[in-house]
Each structure stands twice: as C-alpha cells, then as structure tokens.
C-alpha cells in the first residue's frame, strides 16, 4: 500500500513532501525532486533544506515546529532554488498528519501547491493581455497599443528588449511598429527596410514565415557573412529572436523580436510569452487595420455620396423607422440628429407631389416591390429640388419588410435637361423658319388663291346688285363664296402661324394622318410647282401617338421637301413621292416618305443626319439632324435607305398610344381603298 500511495503522490502535478518537526524530511515526491534537481536520497533528512532560500529556511523550520504545536493548517511563502539555478517564490500549504482515529501524529504534510512566481507571471501576462485588448477595443492608436505589448513582454522577460515591426500594404517594406526601450536609431535603421531574408532576422522571419533565433551574433556564420554583428553589437545586443506575426488567414503582418545583451536561446517560458503576444499583436494589428479600412471605406462612400449628390437610406416598412446617411440629410437640408418624423419628411415634399409620394409609400408597404420614382422637394427657402429615389425591398432578421435605397439630387440634371429642351426647341424653330423661306412661293400661292376668289366674287356680287332689278339671290351666293374663300385664307394663315410660331414643346395625342394631311396641304403648291406627284397611302384607323404635333409636322414637312429636292433633276421618270403611314412590326406607327430621286449613298447614309452636313447647294444641313433629334425625343428613330429602284425612303416609327386590339384592326391599312393622287 505504501508504494502504491507513493506512485499516486508522484503523479500529482504539485510538490508534495513530508517533514517532521525536527526539520527532517522522510518523503518527497518525484515532482519535488524534478523541480529542485535533487535526488530523493539527497533531499531526504535535512538535504531538502539546500533547496530553500537561506534567508527563508529559519522561517520554514520555525513554521514546522509551530505547526506541530498548534496543529492549525497554514500556508507560508518561501523561496526555492529550481533545478536550473533560478530562484522562485512558492506558496507552501501545510497540514498535520493524523492517524486513523484523527489524532495528530508527530509529523506534518507540506504541500507546495503553487509556484508563486509562475502564478504572478501568469497573472501579470493575463493582466497585460487584458490591458492590450481593452486598448484595442477602445480604438486606441496602434503605436500606443504595440508599445503596451512591448512593455508587457519586457516586464515578463527581464533582460529582453522587445520590438514590433509592421509590413506595409505592398508587403515588401517594414514600417515602424513599436520598440519603446530600444536604443535610439535602432528602429530607424529597420523602418522602410526591405522584407527579405537577407535584410536581417526580422526580414528573414517575415519572408520565410518562421521564427528566426540568433543566439549569438558574434558566432553566427550566416549573419557574420551578411556583416551584421558590428551593427547589432553597436546597439548592445548579442542575441536576437524574431517571430512572424500572423493574421487569422496566415498572412505575415509583421514581426515581434526580442533582443538580449547576453547570448542565449529563448526558454520555454520565453516561447510561451512570444506565442501569446504575437497573437495579441496580430489581433491588435488586424483589428486596427480593419477599422482603418472601414473608416477609409466609409470616408470614400461619404465623399462619393457628396460628389454624386446621392444619399442612402433604410426604411422599415412596418415600423416606419428610417436611417439616413449624412448626404441624405444634406439633400433634405435637415440637421443630422434631428428626429426623422413623418411630418418632417412630408414638410420637404413638394405639395404637388405629396399625393404621389404617399401613394408610393402605400404601394411599397403593400406590394414590397422595388422603387424608382422622381419627385420634387421644396426647401424652407422655397427653392425646388428634383430627387430620384431608387430602393429595393429586403427582409430584416425578423422577416419584416425593409427598403434599402438611394436618393439622388438630380436638380442640376433636370435644369440642364430643361435648358437643353429649350435649345432644341429653338433649333427646331430655326429649322422651321429656314423651311419657311423654301415655302415662300408656296405660301404666296396658298394665300393668293383665296384672295383671287374673294376679289372675283366681290366683283360679281357688285355687278349683280347693280342689275335692275338687282339679282339679290345671285349676289348672296357670290358673297357667301367670298366669305368661304376668306375663311380659307384665314385657315392658311392660322396653319402657318401654328407651324412657324416660336413655342415651347407641347405633348398631346396626335393623329399622324391628320397632321400629315395638313403638311401636304401646306406644301402642296410647292410640290406641284416642282412637278412632284404625291401619292398618300394613309392607314385607316391608325392609333394616335403621343408627342408635339408641330414638331412631328416639321419632320414630315422636312422629309417631303427633301424628297422633292432629291427629284429636282429627274426628267426621265415621274417625280413620284409616296407618303405612307402604317403599323410597324412592334405595334408602333410608321411613317415613310419614298421618292424617286437621286437616292442615297449607303456608305454615307448616316452622315445625312449629321448637323451641318448637306448635299444641297442652299441647305444649312440641320433639317435631318433636327428631325432625327425630334423623333428620338418621341422615342422613335429616323432612318434612311436606298430603294430597290431609283430614289430613297426616309421613315420613322413612333410608339402608339395604347397599342392595338387583339385583332390588330386598328393598324390595318387598305392602300387600294385609299389611294389619293394630289
């Protein structure tokens, strides 16, 4: 039983021994012997006393005797020499030895439970680690944190100086990290140095991703070959231990190095210390770098939002909770931090857009579809802003509907578009007025015709009234004809004024057939004068299009006059012009003007639509350019193509209002039923 108990006691990870009141030990466990480096034979009797600090030995012996007298368990602290010659403070717990009846017999158990210095060291390291991690959590500057790491390491490893070098973003250069106790100039020499295995122990550790131990620079063949020892020795160091600091992903972030004035290798506790604090340093570096990256990203985002006048927002559809970015506050001209109430947001919506805005919000709550709307804001100074709101619906952690979106101030764009519209409108007017010159003779004809009728009928009327008796019925009829002709003249003037007066863009439903007939009537005389035979093939029941009637008529007029011009020199065939309306393949409305003129060069057909490009001697070259621009703004496209036979065809398609019915009847065209030769 005795031997079995001894085996058990040997297995306890603590120093266990018995000592009598006279100071003689008769049992010491194996761990006690290992710890002190004394054999059991050497330690027995009074031999154990050689392991106790001389200054502490009387206290320990007195304690043994006092314990025997009081039999009260107590603990004392005493110093012991360890197997490696180092002295450690140990806490010794003593308990009296009792027999089976519980009576105290003449000796005590003394059990060293704790290596106090190890405990103190562990406590200090834990406190240091906690302090560093708190600094990380509080967002302290990285140099300050790394200085603290070095300080903790140096406190736990007396005789050592600690440095931390960082690797820059390129991964090729060292950056100063920390080294609070290193000699002046030491870190300066390393700062900015290349991260290569030849640049020093830290460079080797970082580039090879392994710990580099230089026990004695004076005898190290590699570093002697590199010429390092004089420089290192000049700073007072003989040994240098560098360890890479690794990120969670295994990337080398930097190195933690310990330097000693004496030669030597790191002990087990040194290695534990290095392992612990390279890890802490990696946490600090990664966290700081991540925070810096986040701050940089947020700064970029904020700057991008400011530059693009785009703010972001999150809106919880159920609770109405709203989060805005700084730029969104700026767009709405609301001070950041002001509670975002529905009333406050509504106060910024333009009164004319409130109903639309509320309908959009209701729809978003109900349908959960994405948003893409443009509305106006009215600022406190009554200025108007145009904003575009784009958002997509998502679900939060609890499954509730939430919108994440952007609001862009598009005021400048809208104002620029308005200005552009105005310029386009003026250019279109210039083009129309230019056309007016071409039509002067035709216009004179259209006015002179009814004027002639008026004069002739008036003369006839006077003659009839002068008869004896007066021919009143005849006079009445001729007066009626004179009035009819006067009305025709007035209609011509009204149409001219409508087509050539300066005006803004008016969007309305336009019957393209009717608009085309008016243009033909206005230009008919001109076309006739040019000996152009006009054939109209206008589709029955053509659906209306949405647009500016005058601008569309301008395009048709331009195409008619261009076609006439293209046939000016044609004498060997009829100067036939066909103007046709029909449904196109996409249920839009197509208008084409086909001539029998000189045709177009397929290679240069697109150049015809360039501004100031003209094939006519007296042309400005803006007609087709303006026409294409007008059609584009009506969501259509104006194209030109060479005919299979002589001449060319210019055509445009526009979206129809409301499309056509299922039978397509609204687009049916009966060209044989409605040929009209003018």
């Amino acid at each position, binding site marked *: 039983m005795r031997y079995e108990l001894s085996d058990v006691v040997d297995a306890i990870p603590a120093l266990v021994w018995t000592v009598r009141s006279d100071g003689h030990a008769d049992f010491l466990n194996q761990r006690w012997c290992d710890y002190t480096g004394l054999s059991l034979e050497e330690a027995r009797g009074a031999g154990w006393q050689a392991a106790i600090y001389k200054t502490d030995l009387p206290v320990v012996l007195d304690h043994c005797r006092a314990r025997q007298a009081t039999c009260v368990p107590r603990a004392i602290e005493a110093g012991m020499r360890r197997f490696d010659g180092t002295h450690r403070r140990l806490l010794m717990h003593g308990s009296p030895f009792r027999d089976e009846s519980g009576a105290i017999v003449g000796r005590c158990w003394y059990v060293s439970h704790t290596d106090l210095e190890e405990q103190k060291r562990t406590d200090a390291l834990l406190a240091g680690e906690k302090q560093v991690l708190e600094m990380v959590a509080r967002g302290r500057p990285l140099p300050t944190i790394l200085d603290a790491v070095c300080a903790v390491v140096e406190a736990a490893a007396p005789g050592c100086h600690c440095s931390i070098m960082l690797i820059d973003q390129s991964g090729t250069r060292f950056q100063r990290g920390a080294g609070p106790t290193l000699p002046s100039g030491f870190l300066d020499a390393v700062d900015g140095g290349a991260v290569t295995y030849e640049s020093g122990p830290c460079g080797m550790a970082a580039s090879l991703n392994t710990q580099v131990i230089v026990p004695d620079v004076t005898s190290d063949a590699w570093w002697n070959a590199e010429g390092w020892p004089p420089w290192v020795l000049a700073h007072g160091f003989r040994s240098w231990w560098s360890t890479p600091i690794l990120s969670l992903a295994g990337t080398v972030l930097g190195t933690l190095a310990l330097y000693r004035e004496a030669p030597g290798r790191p002990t087990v506790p040194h290695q534990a210390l290095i392992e612990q604090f390279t890890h802490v340093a990696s946490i600090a570096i990664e966290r700081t770098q991540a925070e810096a990256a986040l701050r940089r990203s947020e700064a970029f985002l904020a700057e991008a939002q400011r530059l693009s006048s785009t703010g972001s927002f999150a809106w919880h559809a159920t609770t109405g909770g709203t989060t805005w970015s700084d730029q969104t506050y700026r767009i709405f001209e609301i001070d950041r931090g002001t509670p975002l109430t529905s009333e406050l947001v509504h106060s910024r919506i333009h009164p004319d857009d409130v109903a639309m805005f509320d309908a959009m919000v209701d729809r978003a709550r109900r349908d959960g579809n994405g948003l893409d709307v443009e509305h106006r804001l009215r600022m406190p100074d009554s200025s108007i802003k145009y904003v575009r709101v784009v958002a997509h619906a998502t679900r939060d952690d609890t499954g509730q509907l939430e919108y994440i979106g952007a609001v862009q101030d598009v005021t400048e764009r809208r104002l620029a578009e308005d200005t552009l519209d105005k310029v386009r409108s003026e250019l279109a007017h210039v083009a129309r007025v230019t056309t007016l010159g071409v039509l002067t*003779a035709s216009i004179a004809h259209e006015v002179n*015709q009814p004027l002639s009728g008026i004069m*002739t009928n008036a003369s006839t009327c006077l003659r009839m009234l002068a008869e004896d008796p007066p021919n009143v019925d005849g006079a009445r009829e001729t007066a009626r004809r004179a009035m009819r002709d006067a009305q025709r003249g007035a209609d011509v003037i009204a149409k001219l004024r409508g087509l050539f007066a300066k005006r803004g863009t008016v969007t309305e439903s336009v019957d393209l057939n009717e608009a085309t007939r008016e243009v033909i009537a206005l230009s008919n005389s001109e076309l006739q004068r040019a000996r152009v035979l006009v054939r109209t093939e206008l589709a029955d029941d053509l659906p209306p299009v949405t647009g500016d009637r005058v601008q569309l008529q301008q395009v048709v007029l331009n195409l008619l006059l261009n076609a006439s011009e293209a046939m000016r020199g044609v004498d060997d065939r009829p100067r036939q012009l066909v103007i046709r309306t029909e449904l196109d393949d996409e249920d839009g409305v197509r208008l084409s003007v086909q001539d029998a003129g000189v045709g177009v060069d397929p290679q240069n057909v697109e150049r015809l639509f360039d501004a100031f490009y003209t094939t006519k001697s007296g042309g400005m070259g803006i007609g087709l350019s303006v026409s294409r621009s007008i059609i584009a703004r009506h969501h259509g496209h104006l194209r030109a193509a060479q005919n299979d036979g002589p001449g060319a065809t210019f055509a445009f398609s526009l979206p129809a209002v409301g499309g056509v019915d299922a039978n397509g009847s609204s687009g049916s065209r009966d060209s044989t039923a409605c040929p009209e030769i003018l």
Partner: protein
Amino acid sequence: MTVRSLVSVVDDSESVRESLPDLLQQYGFATQAFASAEAFLASECVGQTQCLILDIAMPRMTGPDLQRELARRRYHIPIVFITAHSDEIDRPTLLGAGAVDCLFKPFSEAALLDAVHAALRAG
C-alpha cells in the same frame, strides 16, 4: 340673236371655277369651266372656245403643256394665263407661243376683261 363668245376656264381650283365664269357671264360671255387640261381636251368645247383662261400650275398636264398640245392639234385658241405663283412664269416664252396675256392672282375685274377682250380680238 347675238351669239355669245365662249370663254372656257381651266383651273384645278374650285374657287376659280365657280367665281370666274359667274363674273364673265355678267359681261355677256358664255362660259365653261374645267378642272383639268385633260378634261378640256376631251370636251366638245375645245373646238368652240374663243378665249381660254388657263391656270399655269396644275397636276399632271400644266397650262403650258395644254398650250403646246393645242398647238400640236392645230387649235388656235387665244389664251390668257392665270397663276398664283409670281415666280414661275416664263412670260416671254408663253407670249411667244401665242398667249395673249398672263395675270397674277389676285387680279382685278378690269384686268381680266381687258385680257379677255384682247383675246377675242386676237381670235
């Protein structure tokens, strides 16, 4: 019984075809109106007309075209051209080809009568 001179009017304008014959009738002329040169050529009036009031610009066969066709068919009808275009008349050519006068719309009653009487005298 006085035989009234037949004045034919050829013009694609309905207003002219209505008003001009009425006025000429007030001065004792017999009148006929035609909407096109082709219609006039196809009518019996082509051989009876003593004065032709003819519009210059008409679809297909124009006034000068009709003038040439009548000459080709050897009809010597005095012609008074009328037109609403001031810049399309090659007056010397028309007069050289036998036209009596050219009137620009709108023209006065007196100018019309002077031209018609001149045509009748020429015929």
